[in-house]
């Protein structure tokens, strides 16, 4: 259903992906994990056609995304839903209108039907009572839940979640985890979830990919990853600073920089 093959992608001289391969199968939940800065969100941007790979290809339902015209890309996106990391709610519309937005834009449904549809989705995320609040009046977690209701209001075939668990309290997180699982099991929605939350992902993912330094370094079911002896996998799952994935951004020697040795050469402040 979603196939990323041999993708290379660079921003300026910095290479983000160096031959990345990822497959998300129909009706399954695919988790994309990896340390910060490994390009997880960039991968979602490639899949959704927001950006194009330097080489390689991303295919969704067999369509090469980067080759589509805007009309075809929009037709493809109508079958997708995406939950943004910050919710990305439209700030001039209230909660109800935010969820109703794609319905109003793409259908001619009657007002009572739109109302029913929107309230159903808001009820599912526990925010039916917040329908008339403005986005500025919502907490981060509530905004994420409204964004989730908006993402599913058109009953998409593919749902893409960018860090859906960040900033959620345990109750909201439990509800969101259950919702993702239910939508997948009951409605057969294919899901791609980008997240750091290893334990939540383990509870819902059918298949996981661990990205590091531009490549997929491990893949398989959550159990397989947990059994893995790979150093990279162990470092990520166990949350260890020392390992093949550097915790520190490349920098001059700590001692030398503090003591001012070679200050000018290393770009330190001499004044």
């Amino acid at each position: 259903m979603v196939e990323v093959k041999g993708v290379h992608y660079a921003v300026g001289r910095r290479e983000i992906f160096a031959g990345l391969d990822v497959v998300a199968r129909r009706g399954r939940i695919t988790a994309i994990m990896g340390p910060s800065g490994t390009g997880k969100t960039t991968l979602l941007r490639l899949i959704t056609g927001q950006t194009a790979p330097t080489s390689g290809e991303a295919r969704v339902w067999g369509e090469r995304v980067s080759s589509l015209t805007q009309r075809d890309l929009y037709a493809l996106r109508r079958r997708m839903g995406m939950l943004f990391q910050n919710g990305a709610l439209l700030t001039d519309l209230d909660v109800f209108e935010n969820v109703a937005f794609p319905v109003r834009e793409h259908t001619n449904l009657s007002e009572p039907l739109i109302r029913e549809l929107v309230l159903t989705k808001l009820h599912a995320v526990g925010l039916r009572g917040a329908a008339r609040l403005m986005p500025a009046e919502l907490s981060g977690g509530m905004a994420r839940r409204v964004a989730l209701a908006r993402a599913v209001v058109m009953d998409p075939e593919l749902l893409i979640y960018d860090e859906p668990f960040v900033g959620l309290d345990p109750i909201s997180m439990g509800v969101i985890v259950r919702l993702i699982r239910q939508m997948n099991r009951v409605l057969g929605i294919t899901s791609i979830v980008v997240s750091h939350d290893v334990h939540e992902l383990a509870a819902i993912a059918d298949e996981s990919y661990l990205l590091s330094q531009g490549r997929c370094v491990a893949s398989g079911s959550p159990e397989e990853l947990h059994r893995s002896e790979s150093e990279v996998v162990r470092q990520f799952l166990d949350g260890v600073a020392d390992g093949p994935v550097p915790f520190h951004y490349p920098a001059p020697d700590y001692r030398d920089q503090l003591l001012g040795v070679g200050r000018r050469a290393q770009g330190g402040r001499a004044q």
Partner: protein
Amino acid sequence: MSIAAPRDGLLTGALRRVGAVGVFFGAVLVQCVPALARPRLIVHQIYNAGARSLIIIMLCGLFVGMVLGLQGFDLLQRFGSEDALGVAAALGLLKELGPVVTALLFAGRAGTALTSEIGLMRATDQLTAMQMMAVDPLQRIVAPRFIGGVIAMPLLVAIFNLVGLFGAQLVGVQLMGVDAGAYWSQMQGAVQLNDVQEGFIKSVVFGTACSLVAVYEGYHTEPTAAGVGLATTRTVVTSSVLTLLLDYILTAAFL
């Protein structure tokens, strides 16, 4: 980096920017056609850009008219022609001051609001979210705001002129003692339809320019707090310079 490089970069950058604005203008014009089918969005933007600028426009119009009345009276009385104050005020407002000052105020009030609103939408992923919902932000966000600005400007200019004429009359007739009959009748006799048309055409051109600059800067904002601030500043500066440049070109064309 060689010394010549920044100069080349400046020229190339300026040309690239002009080209980018031209391409963007074309894209917005294309999206204006479907946007016109949703008049509620446009009316809302006319309200935002127009009605919300009314107080500042009327206030400034009044003061500009009063100053025009004072200066005009002082100048005309030296030649014993103070009865022509109505004509001087009307032509000055209709042909020049009305469109130009309104455009400058529009850039500062409505233009900055447009840029910061669209820029914040860019910075908070709202535009990307729309694209992900298969909704073109150019059609849903940019085009209605652009059309709203273009329609609002001539209306604001008309109100500015009206209040300005009242201000000039207030000073000239009520304070300085110019004959009211002469003030209005000379104005009626001397002002031609061409003069009104010139002001109207200028207001439409300035409205197009200022609205285009505002939505362009907002749409291409760097998605940071500083980026939104810079884009807003650029809107005021570019709109103001462009208004005065276009004013010269149009005035030369009409003479």
